[in-house]
């Protein structure tokens, strides 16, 4: 299968004064289109940093990083923002919904950057919320929803632009087991039935088992791989 994500000798260093901290140390990795990859590892192993680099939220210190053949690290900020809007969906551990907006308005947010009409934006937002089973919670605000429901809204927001890649940062980390399982079911469905490529950071081995491939990262280096 064609590699969607291609990493070679990827290095990420942070500097604080004279001190330099290497978080990713020459990472090389390929992820094919349509894969569901779980990324595991202890705290500080570089999981979230890798996720940030793949999402174009941060830039690597050195190395090669291409997604869909595009070297995203070389894109100017404005182009990179546009690329994120078009190609990547983000799912956060704490959902990161805007508390002042309804579920529907939250899901509509990424569509504000498109040229779609208001009616079409609303139609797509409702379709996404229907896909995650929240068609009856359109006008509810985040504080009126359970954690699992908020995460479903977060997923609906991530998929509403129909991105190629979903990046999930511990999506079940703040949920009880039942809600967590439902979210994982949903991610599996998005992977299998909608062909989304998913990279999921998790500490939970049970969650990782849902993925088609498990990567273990430690001290910025790839340690083990389970298929």
């Amino acid at each position, binding site marked *: 299968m064609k590699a969607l994500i291609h990493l070679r000798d990827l290095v990420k260093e942070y500097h604080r004064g004279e001190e330099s901290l290497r978080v990713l140390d020459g990472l090389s990795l390929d992820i094919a289109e349509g894969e569901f990859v779980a990324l595991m590892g202890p705290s500080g192993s570089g999981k979230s940093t890798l996720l*940030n680099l793949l*999402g174009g*939220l*941060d830039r690597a210190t050195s190395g090669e990083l291409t997604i869909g053949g595009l070297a995203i690290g070389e894109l100017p*900020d*404005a182009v990179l*923002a*546009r*690329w*994120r*809007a*078009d190609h990547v969906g*983000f799912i*956060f551990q*704490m959902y*990161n919904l*805007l*508390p*002042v*907006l309804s579920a529907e*308005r939250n899901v509509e*947010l*990424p569509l*504000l*950057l498109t040229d779609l009409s*208001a009616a079409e934006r609303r139609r797509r937002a409702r379709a996404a919320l229907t896909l995650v089973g929240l068609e009856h919670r359109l006008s509810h605000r985040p504080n009126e929803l359970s954690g699992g429901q908020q995460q479903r809204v977060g997923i609906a*927001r991530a998929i509403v632009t129909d991105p190629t890649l979903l990046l999930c940062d511990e999506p079940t980390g703040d949920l009880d087991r039942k809600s967590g399982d439902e979210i994982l079911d949903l991610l599996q469905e998005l992977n299998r039935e909608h062909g989304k490529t998913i990279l999921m950071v998790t500490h939970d081995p049970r969650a990782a088992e849902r993925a088609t491939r498990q990567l273990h990262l430690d001290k910025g280096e790839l340690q083990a791989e389970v298929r």
Partner: protein
Amino acid sequence: MKLARVLRYLPLLWASLRRRRVRTTFTIGSIFIAFLMYALAGAMNHAFDQGVQQAGVDRLMVQQKVSFILPLPASYLNRVKGVDGVERVSSANWIGGYLKDAREQIPTFPIHAEEYLDMYPEMLLPRGERQNFLDDRTGFLVGRAVADAYGWKVGDVVPLKSSIYRRKDGSNVWNLTIRGIFDMRDEGDSRQLLFHYEYFNETLADAQKDRLGWIMVQVEDPAQSDAIGQRIDALFANSPAETKTQTERAMAQGFMKQIGSIGTILGAVVSAVFFTMLLVSANTMAQSVRERTSEIGVLKTLGFGNTTILSLVLAESVLITAIGGLLGMGAAWLLGVQLGTALKQYLPGFAVDPVTLVKGLVWVIALGLAAGAWPAVQAMRLKIVDALRRG
């Protein structure tokens, strides 16, 4: 950003404003007060300016050089009339006119009637009433504002008193018959009473006879006003009553300068209020952006570019000032309509004029942009990773 694109963000902006309702309400309240004061100060200035605007440029005023309150000899009238370039002349005296209480004076002037009426076409008077006034030496003309205030009508006889002049018999009362009620063009100040100088002068005690307060001169060519003024002043140079001649508008401006300090004080107060409002709004926006650091990070993660974030914060700031400013100016306009009617007799022209409102709109936008500038730049510069971590 195009307008349509801005409009699609309105629900987001509106929701942001409602996040801290009490704080937003207080901020909008302070902006409301600032623009209310601004527009009312504008209405006051409009009232002050109106007198100057109505003053003619083709009319000169001749007064005593030493002081406006010192009289001119009546003989000056014909001498001024004979100066090259002078078309017609009239005169007026300030007599301190009143009805019952000398503290409630009404601007009352004995005039050379026919010339005066010809010189002031802005006085709107029915032709019949004009003729009746000219035919009756004891008649007088009443401005609409005064007639309305006292409920007078044509034909009424009014005992007018002077706080300055005395009749031969020692009385200070002139019984005058109203022969006409006039309006001023463009709703100008009509708080005046006018009557015949000849009659007035004949009734005076000898010591006060043959005095003119000032002489009004209509010139043939307004472009020659300065030269004619110099010729008039030269005519009376080195006499016991030297003159100072200036255009009516310059004289009105000079008079307004004496109360101009009120305008300056008003301007200073409004500036201080605007500055305070700017600090309040900027503080509100800074707090608002600080509280939403992680949300700004999320928006950037979703693909909102730095320019879009900058524009959104600025738009939110302008929206706050626009709501407060428009409400404030709207309230001032309504107040202006009410007060303008109530104060018509004392402060004609008190109204919030369109120029003030348009300038106000510019201020609304400028202050909104200024208040939001620094928070917007901070939001724009925010790194996504840092913003999400702070959340």
